[in-house]
């Protein structure tokens, strides 16, 4: 990313974003206090939200929903319509931000061309999820207590047991854990209003049932890894690998992702999480050893997501992600965004930053400061705030949250004690390489093995 590109990204507002987010904030405030007893101001905030989508296909349903909710009769369909309206507004914000980022980077992005898939069949497990989400909305975050949180427990357990419903299960489990940790919310000093409304709206939409993904294409060629983004809550971990696919038949390199995830418990954290992903040794090996991968017939969705089959990948030559980023990233073709996933939180565009200075929590390129997400350095890898502070080059993901652009480092080149050091988030995918961390891990023992032994002995008694 060049200084001129960063300046194009940062200088000046993106039109419409602040106004749209104000409408979302109004809805989020109503949800904090509960849709079951709306005052005048909050009813007006809902009406403003519905008004903003009035010209869209959602308009009639959103308008009717606000009328009914304001009159005190809240039905499931009304809440779904409002969740849809909020999602549509944030989708528009996402589109404006991503267009701005693509323009600044000069990045070409494929258009979404797949036809809308039919709605899925009704599902009683999803009905249970919807009913809990409706209860939350009527009550409002401020009214949520332990009983309401634990009412989700059986539903989440049943959803988790269904692999096809994993996404909504993982989402609800994460939300319920946060609500439980904050109880009693009535007296909590503050409420993460945007975040919980995001999670709620997302869950409401997922609980309608997801249309089937369009058929993937089968791709072959060389996958050059740029880095790995790790996601984690108490009971889930996902490693999302960003890379460039050089198609075997020639043509422009394509930005792709490979995502592998596992269920876990809160006490499995830090480098131990890689042990939960050991079913993908070829992928983890490429991360740890900085190798390219040769893919044969790997399914690829239009969203740029490879559906990872470790047996369709073979370890290739060593490939330095920094060299890959320097030579090929600028001209790579970016994938389309799945319509349902259009939300600013998923903006995660790989970039290379070089020649900057570090000023506190920002990388400064020719006078333009870009905030660094030090909170997002995963504990399963060697990246630390100190390494970032000592860095001179960084592969990262450009992110946006609450009005601010930032970069999440995936790898840095730094100078420590006058020696060059390179660290990638995935360096420990096959186990830690830092002697201090190896020692600490050895002392703690293999937590995954301990819990699996307990599960084997106690669950099947």
């Amino acid at each position, binding site marked *: 990313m060049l200084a001129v590109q960063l300046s194009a990204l940062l200088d000046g507002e993106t039109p419409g974003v602040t106004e749209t987010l104000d409408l979302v904030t109004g809805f989020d405030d109503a949800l904090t206090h509960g849709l079951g007893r709306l005052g005048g101001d909050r009813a007006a905030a809902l009406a403003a939200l519905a008004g903003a989508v009035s010209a869209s296909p959602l308009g009639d349903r959103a308008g009717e929903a606000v009328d009914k909710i304001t009159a005190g009769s809240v039905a499931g369909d009304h809440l779904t319509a409002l969740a849809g309206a909020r999602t549509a507004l944030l989708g528009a914000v996402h589109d404006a931000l991503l267009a701005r980022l693509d323009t600044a980077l000069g990045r070409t992005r494929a258009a979404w061309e797949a036809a809308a898939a039919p709605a899925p069949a009704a599902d009683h497990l999803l009905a249970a999820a919807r009913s809990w989400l409706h209860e939350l909305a009527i009550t409002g975050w401020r009214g949520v207590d332990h009983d309401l949180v634990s009412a989700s427990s059986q539903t989440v357990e049943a959803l988790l047991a269904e*692999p096809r419903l994993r*996404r909504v299960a993982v*989402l609800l489990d*994460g939300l319920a*854990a*946060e609500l439980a940790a*904050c109880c009693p919310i009535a007296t909590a000093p*503050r409420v*993460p*209003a*945007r*975040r919980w409304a*995001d999670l709620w709206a*997302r869950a409401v939409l997922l609980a309608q049932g997801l249309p089937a*993904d369009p058929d993937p294409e089968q791709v072959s060629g060389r996958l050059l890894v740029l880095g790995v*983004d790790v*996601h*984690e*809550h108490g009971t*889930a*971990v*996902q490693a999302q690998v960003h890379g460039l696919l050089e198609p075997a038949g020639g043509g422009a390199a394509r930005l792709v992702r490979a*995502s592998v*995830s596992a*269920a*876990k418990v*809160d*006490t499995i*954290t*830090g480098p131990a999480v890689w042990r939960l992903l050991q*079913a993908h040794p070829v992928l983890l090996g490429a991360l740890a050893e900085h190798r390219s991968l040769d893919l044969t017939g790997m399914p690829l969705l239009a*969203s740029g*997501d490879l559906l990872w089959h470790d047996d369709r990948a073979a370890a290739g030559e060593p490939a330095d992600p920094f060299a890959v980023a320097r030579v090929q990233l600028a001209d790579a073709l970016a994938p389309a965004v799945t319509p349902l*996933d259009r939300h*600013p*939180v*998923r903006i995660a565009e790989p970039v290379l930053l070089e020649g900057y200075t570090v000023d506190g929590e*920002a990388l400064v390129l020719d006078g333009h*400061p870009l*905030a660094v*997400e030090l909170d*997002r*350095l*995963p*504990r*399963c890898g060697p990246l630390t705030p100190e390494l970032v502070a000592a860095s001179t080059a960084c592969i990262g993901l450009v992110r946006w*949250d*609450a*009005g*601010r652009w930032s970069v999440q480092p995936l790898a840095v080149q730094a100078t420590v004690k006058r020696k060059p050091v390179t660290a990638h988030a995935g360096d420990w995918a096959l186990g830690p390489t830092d002697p201090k961390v190896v020692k600490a891990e050895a*002392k*703690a*023992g293999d*937590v995954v093995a*301990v819990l*699996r032994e*307990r*599960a084997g*002995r*106690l669950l099947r008694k």
Partner: protein
Amino acid sequence: MSADAPAWEQRSTARVVSPVQPRKLAKVPFVELADGRLQGVVSSGSDIGRVYVSSVAAGTHTYDCSTNNNRPCGGLYGAPCKHLRLLVDEAVIQYGLDRVAGYLRAEVGDDGDLIGALGGGVERTPAAMVFSRFLRHLTYLELPGATTPVPELHWFPAGVAR
């Protein structure tokens, strides 16, 4: 748009729960702050198939320890047994002293002695609920992994608030 930190309430990725600290799980595989108690499961030192369910109530600081079959712990003579001591020690590693003491509403002196501050005496508490929560906890390890993306996890970045 500036590099200043935006308002927490307006952040989609606001951090609400701090990840717990890693610890050895061999002796105390399960610890939680839930149902108004610090509660957990302690593996028996002598019988590999037996576990103890130990708990301390918030506020009253009464405590209990029994096997998962509800047999009272033999080590509980009017003072916390070794299982309760282990439970409290491991909870402090996992969550930090402040969070555990705060949840239990316990006043801890400068010596950091939490177990010494818990003088509520024994009060029988059924072990079955905690034990079944532990079993549910273990079932997560038996769920199959996935290779289809979970876009929702973008709301849950790994890392720690600094």
